[in-house]
């Protein structure tokens, strides 16, 4: 089988597109690329539909070997955007993946173990099927996503220690939780451990009355655990949860979640 062979997978490389909204009632998060503006930008550069699947990677990306006969044009976005054309035997990273559609999308749902490439992170030895540059997936009706400027917001895909500011609005029960919301805005936070599901925020302990019944959760929710630790939920968040939601990151700022690494300073400002 020819395609892109994974030589080294990297720590968390997955196939992602713009997500599969509409299945939250079955516990399936919308998912999609952590930085959707970047995915759209890369697909436009590649001449693909905006929602074509792409490879998402964190920190060290994968090493890939192209085994096809035709030449393969690749767009790599992150610290700026670059293009590379691969001939057979060349090694690098990707676009125009041909993955089967599951629940209306081609991206990997790690919590569900489906979609993308076998529903999991890539491993060495995997061979990714690659389409003819014209991916078959169409943007959803009415889809409008503003591309992010190459030299503006995306001039440093991995900002490491640089502070990230996220705009938030209150969650539900805004009046009853106003104090905790203000505490969130006032404090300096540092990103702790995290992944596509969410991220722990290190800082002062917050106190909020716990829920009696679980509630649905939107992406970008800031929950407060029983132990008082805030958790920022990202693209692969649980759809229902038992912790109170004191704030929600505005939709436009969700892409910034892709830049948070352990140790990144985080500030929340009112939207």
């Amino acid at each position, binding site marked *: 089988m020819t395609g892109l062979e994974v030589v080294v997978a990297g720590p968390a490389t997955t196939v992602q597109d713009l997500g599969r*909204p*509409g*299945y*939250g*009632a*079955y*516990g*399936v998060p*919308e998912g999609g690329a952590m930085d959707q503006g970047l995915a759209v930008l890369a697909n436009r550069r590649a001449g693909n539909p905006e929602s074509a699947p792409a490879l998402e990677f964190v920190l060290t990306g994968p090493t890939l070997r192209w085994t096809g006969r035709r030449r393969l044009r690749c767009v790599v976005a992150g610290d700026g955007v670059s293009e590379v054309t691969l001939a057979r035997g060349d090694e690098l990273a990707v676009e125009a993946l041909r993955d089967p559609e*599951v*629940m209306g999308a081609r991206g990997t*749902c790690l*919590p*569900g*173990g*489906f*979609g993308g490439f076998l*529903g999991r992170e890539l491993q060495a030895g995997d061979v990714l099927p690659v389409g003819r540059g014209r991916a078959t997936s169409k943007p959803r009706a*009415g889809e*409008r996503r503003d591309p992010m400027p190459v030299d503006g917001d995306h001039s440093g895909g991995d900002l490491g220690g640089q502070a990230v500011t996220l705009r*938030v*609005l*209150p*969650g*539900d*029960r*805004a009046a009853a939780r106003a104090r905790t919301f203000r505490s969130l805005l006032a404090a300096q936070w540092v990103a702790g451990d995290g992944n596509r599901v969410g991220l722990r925020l290190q800082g002062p302990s917050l106190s909020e009355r716990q829920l*009696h*019944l*679980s*509630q*649905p*959760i*939107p992406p*970008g*929710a800031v929950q407060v655990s029983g132990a008082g630790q805030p958790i920022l939920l990202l693209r692969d968040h*649980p*759809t*229902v*949860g038992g912790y109170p*939601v004191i*704030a*929600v*990151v*505005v*939709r436009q700022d969700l892409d910034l979640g892709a830049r948070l690494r352990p140790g990144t300073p985080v500030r929340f400002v009112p*939207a």
Partner: protein
Amino acid sequence: VTVSAGAAVRVSMESMGDAALLLRWAGAGPAGAPLAVEAARRAIRAARLAGVVDVISAPATLLVRFDPARVSAAALAGRLPALAGGAVPKRQPRQHRLAVRYGGDAGPDLEEVADLLGLSLDQVVARHTARAYTVMATGFAPGFVYLGPLPPSLRLPRREEPRPAVPAGSVAIADAQTGVYGVRSGGGWWLIGRAQAPTFHPDRNPPTRFAIGDRVTFEALG
């Protein structure tokens, strides 16, 4: 905004961030109003409102996620009360029978559960299989099904240390609930058995046959 949804139950609405509205059923009691919430979810989905991207139900709350670039919260808020407050349609709940292997590798917590409850293994299984449970919610993780209420003699607080990986199909208990894991995921409930047939099918629409209000019985495999 508050609308009436039948005797003493009221639905209120509030924002949750810039891209979601949360509807809340108040006065429905400690178990919530899962049937009314589910009926509202179906009605809102069926209305195909422009800009709505997902509708997610929980026992007493419903989240309507929308794209703020396509519809304003105010416009949406004007449409939702009538859809949410309608009469609960007479949907015939489905009956599900799940064949479960209890104990051993399939239910690694069964012995500890029996010890903590002061019951024999057989008694735990007999009580767990004795009644039909109602689907209270689906979600949290893909295909997870919340069932209740659990007989009072089987109730335990959840485990202190959640497991990082619970196999798909695991049948578990915690507090007043029992549940089935649709996929392999983390979890802090007590694992007493495993359903033999998969309950989550990503290639089908809908991916699970369990709907809120359905009835589920467990059958012990010998």
